[in-house]
């Protein structure tokens, strides 16, 4: 009984402490807010930028380096004097890839912190938030490249910095067609994807495009994101003898497919869209990843580019370990850089609408090879118009093609 009392006492005290902290926060905000309103713009208040990252959730393996990249860019930008003389205050929240927590985080950022724009993450949560994003006029750049987010009438504040999944699958299909030498028959292709919004996103467009350009889609297989075995699907696929298989998965499932394909002796050439192609695939699949091709919209940290050198110098001069950074770090860096460019172009009009106009005025924004040049307009938020393919050779992704224009839809 005594033990129980101590336990209850401890819990009550913790709760009181936590509640105490919790009730402080709302009190702070109105003061800050009133200060902000009273202060003339010359006082150089920091610009508040929100971020909803996945650091500890299901996609934390790629989400954590992405968040790291974005944070590093903001720190780098602030060290260069910020935007138009104003520093950027990045308020980031880890939502653990759970939609209710993403909504809660979004509300906190918009209603409590009054951020002017947000860097987001997943397909499920970005799509869950589009209505609120539109109502609150919050420019939103997320890690999801779903074609759905490009419908400009309904999603006027969502921007995509990389080719959409549909664009990527069309790009791969076009490349297959262009490089097909056997004139006796069309190339045969299979799709491998997962049963989520993310996985199914490009499939419909892929089917249509394959038919349009004369690539035979012979099979579609569903492999779960967390699958540790894909043998039955691959055996199924083997019967139809596809020349190519296009993967829309994340690193883990991709590695599973590549390993099982090697085990079964498949000769199919596997090609992954951007989340299915990074250092982690090579690490997990090892030898089985040899020859694997991926759509790579962002540069690898080991590439020899002046922009990479600049980031490397910044990271190392701030005590970071460059060897630990991967491609997703660059991706986070680029997303934040594009958002910052939009803010810069918004000038003194740092509001949702101002930044939207700023982003829409970006034309061929040169990222020094870190990603395809980004362009937006009031009609289209399809940021990237080019893509390229990399192939794994000796355990490393090396360029297979240069930046090439995306095919006509």
């Amino acid at each position, binding site marked *: 009984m005594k033990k129980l009392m101590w336990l209850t006492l401890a819990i009550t005290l913790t709760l009181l402490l936590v509640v105490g902290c919790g009730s402080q926060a709302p009190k702070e905000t109105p003061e800050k807010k009133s200060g902000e309103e009273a202060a003339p713009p010359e006082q150089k208040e920091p610009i508040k930028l929100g971020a909803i990252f996945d650091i*500890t959730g299901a996609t934390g393996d790629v989400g954590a380096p992405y968040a790291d990249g974005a944070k590093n860019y903001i720190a780098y930008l602030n060290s260069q004097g910020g935007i138009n003389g104003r520093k950027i205050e990045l308020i980031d*929240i880890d939502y*653990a890839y759970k*939609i*209710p927590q993403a909504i809660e985080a979004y509300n906190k950022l918009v*209603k409590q912190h009054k951020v002017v724009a947000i860097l987001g993450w997943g397909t499920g949560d970005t799509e869950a938030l589009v209505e609120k994003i539109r109502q609150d006029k919050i420019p939103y750049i997320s890690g999801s490249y779903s074609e759905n987010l490009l419908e400009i009438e309904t999603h006027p504040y969502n921007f995509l910095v990389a080719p959409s999944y549909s664009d990527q699958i069309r790009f791969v299909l076009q490349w297959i067609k262009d490089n097909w030498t056997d004139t006796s028959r069309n190339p045969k292709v299979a799709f491998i994807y997962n049963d*989520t*919004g993310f996985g199914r996103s490009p499939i419909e467009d892929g089917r249509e495009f394959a038919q349009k350009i004369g690539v035979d889609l012979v099979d579609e297989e569903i492999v779960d994101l967390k699958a540790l075995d894909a043998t039955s699907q691959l055996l199924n696929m083997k019967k139809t003898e596809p020349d190519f298989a296009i993967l829309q998965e994340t690193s883990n499932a991709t590695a599973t497919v590549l390993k099982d394909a090697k085990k079964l002796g498949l000769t199919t050439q596997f090609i992954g869209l951007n989340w299915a192609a990074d250092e982690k695939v090579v690490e997990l699949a090892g030898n089985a990843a040899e020859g694997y091709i991926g759509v790579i919209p962002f540069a690898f940290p080991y590439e020899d580019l002046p922009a990479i050198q600049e980031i490397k110098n910044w990271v190392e001069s701030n005590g970071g370990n460059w060897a630990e950074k991967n491609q997703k770090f660059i991706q986070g860096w680029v997303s934040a850089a594009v958002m910052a460019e939009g803010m810069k172009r918004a000038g003194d009009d740092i509001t949702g609408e101002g930044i939207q106009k700023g982003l829409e005025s970006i034309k061929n924004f040169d990222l020094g090879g870190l990603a395809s040049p980004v362009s937006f307009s009031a009609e289209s938020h399809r940021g990237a118009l080019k893509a390229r393919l990399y192939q794994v050779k000796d355990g490393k992704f090396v360029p297979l093609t240069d930046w090439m224009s995306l095919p006509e839809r």
Partner: protein
Amino acid sequence: MRNPFVMNCGVFTTSYRQDMAFHFTPLAHLRVMIIVALLFLFPFMVNEYVVSVANLVGIAVIGALGLNILTGFTGQISIGHGAFLGVGAYTSAILTTKLGLSFWIALPLAGIVTALVGSIFGIPSLRLKGLYLAIATLAAQVIIEFTIIHWTSLTNGTRGMILPAPQLAGYSLDSDRSYYFLILVLALLATVFAFNLFRTRPGRAFVAIRDRDIAAEVIGIDLFKYKIMAFALSSFYAGIAGSLWAHYLTIISPEHFTISVSIEYLAMIIIGGLGSVMGSIYGALFMTLLPVLLRTLAEALSSIFPDIESVFLGLREAVFGATIILFLIFEPEGIAKIWKNIKDYFHLWPFSY
């Protein structure tokens, strides 16, 4: 009237009416009134963000009450509650967007449709118990999720559906504050109904089935009828919660109703207290607020220890798991029991023997 401020030192009822009363003392009655009044004033005392968190809590309360009726009071484990929320949400979405019905008709219909679906999946409960039933309801989760994803002509598949915010007399309930009152009223109704349910014949039958189903049948309780009724009621609650969730977000997709949602609801009623109406509320509060509180704590401490934030974030999942284990070991009856112990302690103090 008795002086409301004197402590009571025992309950002495002299009529059945008094015996069945909710509040034995005027003070308790007053306290409930004050709490309800505070709940109605709450959105005017805090900023909009806090209101939005309260909305998430309110929806979770309704869902957790439903699951507690089934699992806590009737002893039928369900791992399909997340999917039942989805049935409610999608029913509401289809009725309002495809058939153009008003939200006020779609909401009860969502509850009824979910109750029907729930009772179908409840049929195996006559033969199956415990783990076996858990797997059967897991099948419900998988089947419903599969249906939502693949019946694209009706549900739009993985792309999700966009639906309107409810209208009340020409006024759109699309702000957090206005929606708060809708959720609050429904959550209060749900709570009062649940409290009263266990004072009625079906409610007592549920508890009898949980305690020993064979004995319950021997004394004349129709097991099949009452088990299905428990599933229907529980799913009705889930349907209402799902409909509220859908119209709050105004966009839904299958990713909102995965198995992890089902497990989160199970965790809510375990932590809050199985077989306790108030427990469902405490559990919903706890599970929704824990991530918020941990983050607030991390933010508060980060001014003293700059690196603590990343450590705290990593700890969160561990804290979730550890909390459930600690509850199972030290207080299987959950927060509701802890709260009762605290109250008893002060009731009896200083003569705690």
